[in-house]
């Protein structure tokens, strides 16, 4: 009974009635403390479009770089936008932002590394339309708003918007469809390519006697250690990443035609002399039919023409397997071409 009276007394109190009618949590509790890391603030005018924030962001759709449209007076500025539906308020973007003052501000209790700097990249990314399967994964992964777009049914990277972060290359499911090209040191790259291709060719030429005896379906294999190539490339340019990249691209794309010449089988019919497009095959009364390998284009016409099998035509392909720069191996596989011989 006493408890009921007590309740009635309690309900009759003015302060209780007021609290009941206007229930509200203590405003001090509801207030966000200053140490709380809220969504990052963006100050567009400081942004240098380096893409460090997008690279540091752990959430898939939290941050994008966009570029405002050019006006008649000035160029459009690039700046990050925060998607609050994806942002996890970790503050990493503010931490890595290299500008001074910072473009992104995010709370005050996280570590901001002052010494953080970003190296300028010397790579350009292009899409090879021949290999591209138009899956648009690169488009989705692109950290910059609409840097990759589809124009005339082709995927195109807009170089003026690209920040060379390499994200598209990582997501691309086709090897070689997106290429990261070193745009500096082009001459040195040419030198390396020439050197590597010539060395590989010389290596194959040295096995000529074995190649001549190959059966039609037989495969001839050579393992070629790359340490020597790497050593020579380092003399041309001291950039291991570039050398590795170039070697990979060479072995991926190179298809070498090899022509062998078997003088013993030649009956001096001179059918090939007329057919040869570069004049590499000549006829001499004393020496018979002669082939000048330096003029040869490796077009295989002599192979297709010769009724006696003097010319042999083989195709060599290459595969780079490497554990490190110094003990990697290029696997060379060589096979007789399946071209028909004209009759």
């Amino acid at each position, binding site marked *: 009974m006493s408890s009921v009276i007590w309740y009635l007394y309690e309900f009759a109190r003015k302060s209780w009635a007021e609290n009941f009618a206007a229930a509200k*949590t203590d405003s001090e*509790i*509801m*207030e966000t403390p200053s140490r709380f890391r809220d969504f990052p603030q963006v100050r567009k005018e400081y942004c240098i479009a380096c893409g460090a924030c997008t690279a540091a962001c752990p*959430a*898939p759709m939290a941050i994008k770089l966009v570029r405002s449209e050019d006006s008649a007076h000035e160029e459009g500025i690039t700046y990050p936008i925060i998607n*609050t*539906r994806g*942002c996890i308020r970790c503050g990493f973007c503010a931490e890595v932002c290299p500008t001074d003052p910072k473009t992104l501000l995010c709370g005050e209790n996280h570590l901001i590394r002052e010494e953080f700097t970003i190296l300028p990249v010397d790579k350009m990314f292009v899409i090879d339309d021949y290999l591209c399967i138009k899956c648009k994964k690169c488009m989705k992964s692109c950290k910059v708003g609409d840097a990759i777009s589809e124009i005339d049914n082709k995927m195109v990277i807009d170089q003026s918007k690209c920040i060379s972060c390499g994200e598209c290359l990582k997501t691309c499911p086709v090897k070689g469809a997106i290429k990261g090209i070193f745009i500096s040191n082009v001459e040195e790259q040419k030198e390396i390519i020439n050197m590597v291709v010539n060395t590989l060719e010389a290596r194959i030429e040295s096995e000529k006697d074995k190649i001549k005896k190959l059966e039609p379906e037989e495969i001839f294999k050579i393992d070629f250690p790359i340490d020597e190539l790497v050593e020579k490339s380092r003399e041309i340019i001291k950039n291991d990443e570039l050398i590795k990249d170039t070697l990979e691209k060479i072995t991926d794309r190179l298809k070498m035609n090899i022509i062998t010449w078997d003088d013993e089988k030649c009956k001096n019919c001179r059918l090939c002399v007329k057919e040869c497009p570069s004049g590499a095959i000549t006829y001499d009364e004393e020496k018979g039919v002669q082939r000048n390998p330096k003029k040869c284009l490796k077009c295989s016409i002599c192979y297709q023409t010769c009724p006696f099998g003097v010319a042999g035509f083989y195709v060599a392909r290459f595969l780079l397997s490497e554990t490190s720069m110094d003990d990697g191996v290029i696997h060379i596989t060589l096979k007789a071409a399946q071209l028909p011989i004209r009759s």
Partner: protein
Amino acid sequence: MLDSLKDIIRKSSIHVCLINTGGCNGCDIEVVALLSPRYDLEQYGIYVHNNPREADVILVTGAVTEQWREKLQRIYAKAPEPKIVVAIGNCPLSGDVFNQEGSSVYAPVSDFIPVDAEISGCPPRPSEILAAILGVGPDAIAAKGRQKQ
């Protein structure tokens, strides 16, 4: 007269059902913090029952995994009208860190059930959740109740 009476009752007594559709549980912990004496959700007449059949407000957390897709709709259908859905955290809005390439989450939740309010954050602060529920809850329920009639 009857409508305004219903409004008052609906506004002052809100039953909440919390559904985690496959998140990291962080948002659920923030909701539990709301129930604690510090924030004291019940002083506003809000009760967390976790029973969809008597829920006015459905709180959805999590990024909607394969198994939750149909169950979420079933739970939504079980709640009586008027009902509102509040998506808590980034997971139901965008899938957040779970929405990676090749993952089988089906965020956003709004693809499956209509969402009335969204609270972003990973996780949102309890005060943000409270403000959102109070901001949208009572009036939305009252409005939805009238709409039905």
